[in-house]
C-alpha cells in the first residue's frame, strides 16, 4: 500500500495517424505503448496512457488550419501532448512520407510547445522499402520542434507481423525486439521528465521584453 502511494506517475500520449479502422498503425502504436509502460514499471514509474487516433479530429485539424484556433475536441488532444512526459507518434507511410493528416496535426501545434518532449517514432507500410521514412521524414520533423527523439524508431511492414526477424544472420531483429528496444530507450526519458507537472504560463514574456521598445527578436 505504501509503495503504491509513493509511486511516481508519468503521462504518456500515443498518437496514431492510421486512417482505417482497425489499423495496423494503431496496432503498432499500442504495442509500443505497452512495452513503454512495462519498462516504466520496472523503473518504479506508473504511467497514465492517453491514446488518440488523429482521424477522429481530421476535420478539426483542417478547420484549425483555416481559422487559426482549435475546436474544443482538438484542443484537448493538443493540450494532452503538450503536457505529456512522453509521446509515441506513429504514422502510415503515404507517398514516401508521413501522411498529410500527421503533418497537418503537428503543423497546428505551437512550434515551441514540444521542446524537450521525449518521443519514440513508428511507421507502417506495405513494404520494408519505406523504412527510411523514420529517419528522413519523422526525425527531422521532431528535431525541428526540438523534441527529443530516441535513437530507435520502429518500422512495421506488413510482413513483419508474421515474422520473427532474420534468425539466420541475426542482422534484422524481430518487430517485437525492435519495439522493446525503443521502449527501453524512451522509458528513462519519460521517467526523468517533469513536463506533466510544469505550470505553463501562456502570457510569459521574453526576458528582454520592454513595453517601450529597445527590443529585438533575433
Amino acid at each position, binding site marked *: 500500500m505504501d509503495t503504491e502511494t509513493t509511486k511516481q506517475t508519468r503521462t504518456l500520449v500515443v498518437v496514431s495517424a492510421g486512417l482505417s479502422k482497425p489499423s495496423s498503425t494503431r496496432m503498432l502504436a499500442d504495442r509500443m505503448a505497452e512495452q513503454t509502460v512495462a519498462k516504466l514499471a520496472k523503473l518504479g514509474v506508473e504511467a497514465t496512457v492517453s491514446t488518440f487516433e488523429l482521424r477522429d479530429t481530421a476535420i478539426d485539424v483542417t478547420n484549425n488550419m*483555416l*481559422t487559426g484556433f482549435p475546436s474544443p475536441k482538438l484542443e484537448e488532444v493538443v493540450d494532452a501532448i503538450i503536457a505529456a512526459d512522453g509521446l509515441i507518434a506513429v504514422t502510415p507511410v503515404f507517398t514516401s512520407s508521413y501522411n498529410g493528416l500527421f503533418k497537418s496535426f503537428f503543423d497546428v501545434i505551437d512550434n515551441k510547445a514540444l521542446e524537450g518532449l521525449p518521443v519514440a517514432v513508428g511507421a507502417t507500410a506495405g513494404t520494408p522499402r519505406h523504412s527510411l521514412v523514420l529517419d528522413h521524414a519523422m526525425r527531422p520533423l521532431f528535431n525541428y520542434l526540438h523534441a527529443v527523439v530516441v535513437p530507435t524508431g520502429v518500422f512495421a511492414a506488413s510482413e513483419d507481423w508474421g515474422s520473427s526477424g532474420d534468425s539466420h544472420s541475426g542482422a534484422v531483429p524481430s518487430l517485437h525486439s525492435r519495439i522493446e528496444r525503443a521502449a527501453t530507450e524512451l522509458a528513462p526519458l519519460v521517467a526523468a521528465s517533469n513536463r506533466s507537472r510544469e505550470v505553463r504560463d501562456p502570457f510569459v514574456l521574453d526576458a528582454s521584453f520592454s513595453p*517601450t521598445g529597445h527590443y529585438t527578436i533575433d
Partner: protein
Amino acid sequence: MTNSQNTPSAARQMQFGIFSVGDITTDPTTGRTPTDASRLRDVLTIAQHAEDVGLDVFAMGEHHNPPFFPSSPVAINSWLAAKTENLLLSTATTLITTNDPVRLAEDYAMLQHLADGRMDLMLGRGNTGPVYPWFGEDIRQGIPLALEKYALLRRLWREDYVDWSGQFRTPLEGFQSTPRPLDGVPPFVWHGSIRSPEIAEQAAYYGDGFFSNHIFWPGSHTAKMVGYYRQRFEHYGHGSADQAIVGLGGQVFMRKNSQDAVDEFRPYFDNAPVYGHGPSLEEFTEQTPLTVGSPQQVIDRTLGFRDYVGDYQRQLFLMDHAGLPLKTVLEQLDLLGGEVVPVLREEFAKNRPATVPDAPTHVNLKAAAAIQQAAESAESIDLAGVK
C-alpha cells in the same frame, strides 16, 4: 427614440458601433463583384447610416493588398468627419508596424482637428507577410516595430520638440509634429491584438485601451487576453483592473425570424474570406461569438460578453463583409440601431459599478486633463504656502 440621445457631448458608458475590414468579395448569391469605387462609396454610405441609426462609432481597417481596398483609413475618416455630426471615427486597425510614426502623428492629429475631436485610433501589426517588405520592414520584427514606433508616436503628440533615435527609423533632432493635438489632448489609442500578450502588456503599460478582435477566436481566448491586460493595467498603477479600457469586436447577422437569418447568411458565411470553406456556420457560431438569428438572440449573446470580460467600454460589430449587398447591410444597421443597441445600452448600464470609466472621448479626456492640471497647480500652491 434613439437618435435624439446621440449628441457628441453625451457621455456614454459604452459606445456601440461597427468596424469594416473593407473586403471586396463577390456576392456568392449573385456572382456580382463590386469595384473599388463602388465598394468605397458603399462603405461611406454605411458609415453615415451608422450615425443615422444612433450608433456611436465607425472604425475602418487598413490594408495594402487585394481583396481589401482601404489603404488609407485616415483619408476615409477625414471625409466622414465632414459628412457626420456625432459619429466617432476610429480605425480597425492602423498599421503601427509599417507606417512611419511621424506620418501617423501628423495625419491623425490633422484628423483630430478636422473631426473636432470625434476620433481615435486602434493600432495593430497586420498579419500579411509581404506588406512588411513592401514598406521596407521585416515581419519577424513585428512586435519590436509595434513597441518602438508607438513609443515615438506618443512622444510626438506629447512633447513639442522631440529628439529621438531608435532601431527602425531615421533619428530626429528638434522635430515638431504638426498640427499639435486638439486642446493639447492626444488622440486616444487602442491596441488591438488577437493573441500577443506583448501587445496587451504594452496597452497596460501606457494605460491605453485594449481591443480584442473577438471574431475569429473563441470567447474563452478573449477572456484570457482581456484578463491579462486588466491585471497588468492595475500592476502599472493606472487604476484597478476593472477600470481598464476594454473594447470587443463581434459579428452578427439578424432577421426577425432566426431561421431566415441563418438561411440568408449561410452562403456568405460559407464563402467568406478568412474562415470560409472551413467550419460550418453552426460550428463557428458555437465556437466563436458569431451570432446569426433574431435581434433578441443577438441581445442575449452580446450581454453575455460581460460575463467573461467584465464591464467594458466599446462594442463594435462586423456587418459589411463577405460580399453582403449594400441594401442588406443597411437593413442590418436598422435592426442594430433600432432594436438591439437601445436594449444593450439599458441592460449593460444595470449593475455597472460607478467606478468603471465611461468610454473614452475627446470631451472626457479633455475634462480629465483639466482636473489633473488643476490638481497639479493646487499642489504647487500648497507647497508654496508651506514654504
